């Protein structure tokens, strides 16, 4: 794990993705890695609120601060596409992720079955290690 230089974590503003980001920041702090927080822009975002490509959401800064993660090592990426495809592309430049982190279930996903689970889809098809973080995960260091 110490060799991982770049962690990519999926983020859609949901409680589950907050937990994934917490885990990624915590791990990166321990391993001196960078974290790229990746947001996939779906079709409907063109009609409503968008995440801005240039500015990381303030919520991420707040999480980083709580986790003691150096924000200079935080990258923010907004990419057109569905969540799975965008996460898979994070393995390529310019992100070059060596580890993918996803929440156990994202915004708008069906809660009962396999279908609609980005995390399962990513686990099934990813070509690099994947961490699926439970939605209630809080790092021990943060709890303390």
């Amino acid at each position, binding site marked *: 794990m110490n060799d991982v230089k770049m962690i990519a974590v999926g983020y859609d503003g949901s409680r589950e993705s907050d937990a994934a980001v917490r885990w990624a920041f915590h791990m990166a702090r321990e391993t001196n890695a960078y974290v790229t927080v990746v947001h996939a822009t779906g079709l*409907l975002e*063109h009609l409503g609120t968008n995440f801005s490509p240039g500015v990381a959401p303030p919520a991420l800064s707040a999480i980083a601060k709580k986790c003691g993660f150096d924000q200079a090592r935080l990258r923010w990426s907004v990419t*057109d*596409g569905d*969540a799975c*495809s965008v996460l898979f592309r994070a393995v390529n430049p310019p992100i070059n992720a060596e580890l993918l982190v996803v929440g156990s279930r994202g915004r708008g996903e069906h809660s009962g079955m396999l*279908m*609609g689970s980005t995390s399962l889809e990513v686990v099934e098809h990813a070509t690099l290690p994947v961490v699926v973080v439970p939605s209630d995960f809080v790092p021990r260091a943060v709890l303390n």
Partner: protein
Amino acid sequence: MVLVVGGFFDDSGHEDPGHPERPDRVTAALAGVADLHLDSDLVTAAPREATRAELLRVHHGGYLDELGALCYGGGGDIDQDTYATYDSWTIAKHAAGGGLAVIDELQRRNEGVGFVAARPPGHHALADRAMGFCLLNNVAVATAALLEEGERVLVLDWDVHHGNGTQQIFWDEPSVLYVSTHQWPLFPGSGYAGEVGGRHAIDRTVNLPVPAGATGDVLRRAIEEVAAPVISDFDPTWVLVSAGFDAHRDDPMANLELTSDDFAELALLAASFAPQPGRLAMFLEGGYDLLALRTSVHATLGAVLGARPEFEGLSSGGPGSDHVARVQRERVAAIDSLHTFNAEEGGA
């Protein structure tokens, strides 16, 4: 000339309040058809479901089972964009079957033009996954049926979004030529010019990405200069159009500047690629501004039927003209790479 319209089925059960992919879209599209006043030249194809065997030509069985079970369980959100309801499974199978019915009718008549006014749309649906409002890939199901009959099918996709599902399904299929114009960058993030097909189907995918703000003249030039020679070499026996109307300048989902009249011009281009009457069918994909959808359907179908109602006039002067040469360069480089790979690997 006869217009064969298919996809008639009560789609009111596939609706998520507030979602832009809604039953009113088909109502608007059919109003565009009615505006043509075709009388006896309007023929309706009998509605039917696509069978499991017909769907299995393009979709994985496990995915079909899962989608059906999700719907019968009451449905839900599949991803941040895509939903299903209790009725969606039946409605989606009728949308896919609508394309098959239109093709059957065109083959029986050996004349006319087809229009599949059905939803949910299909071109984002992958072999194993729903996506981008799409559950089943309607145009792909129709294409696969034609392939079974030994046809060579051109799928021309002018929806503002790249049809990643259709591209994926026929990526390595030499008897299908997939040509897409789309805004880029934009959802779903695929559709680079350098995506030219698999090693068994080199140059059977032609992606023509254009920047936000592009006008109809840019899309026509891209098709005429880059795609038309490939289409001519391919020599299709059928032309199916993924006719999304969300590249219209009034559409809220994207940022191209096309007018209804631009779609009429694109339709005439599509018709020019068809080898004979009765070999052109259009499938409704996107299009979320209801008035723009209605006038665009009117203009599109009117053009291929020989009438030419005028609406906003043609658009021109937008950015992207310089992209055409770049697209061609990227395509040539990708094609050369694949040929080199095949040569070094002992041929495909």
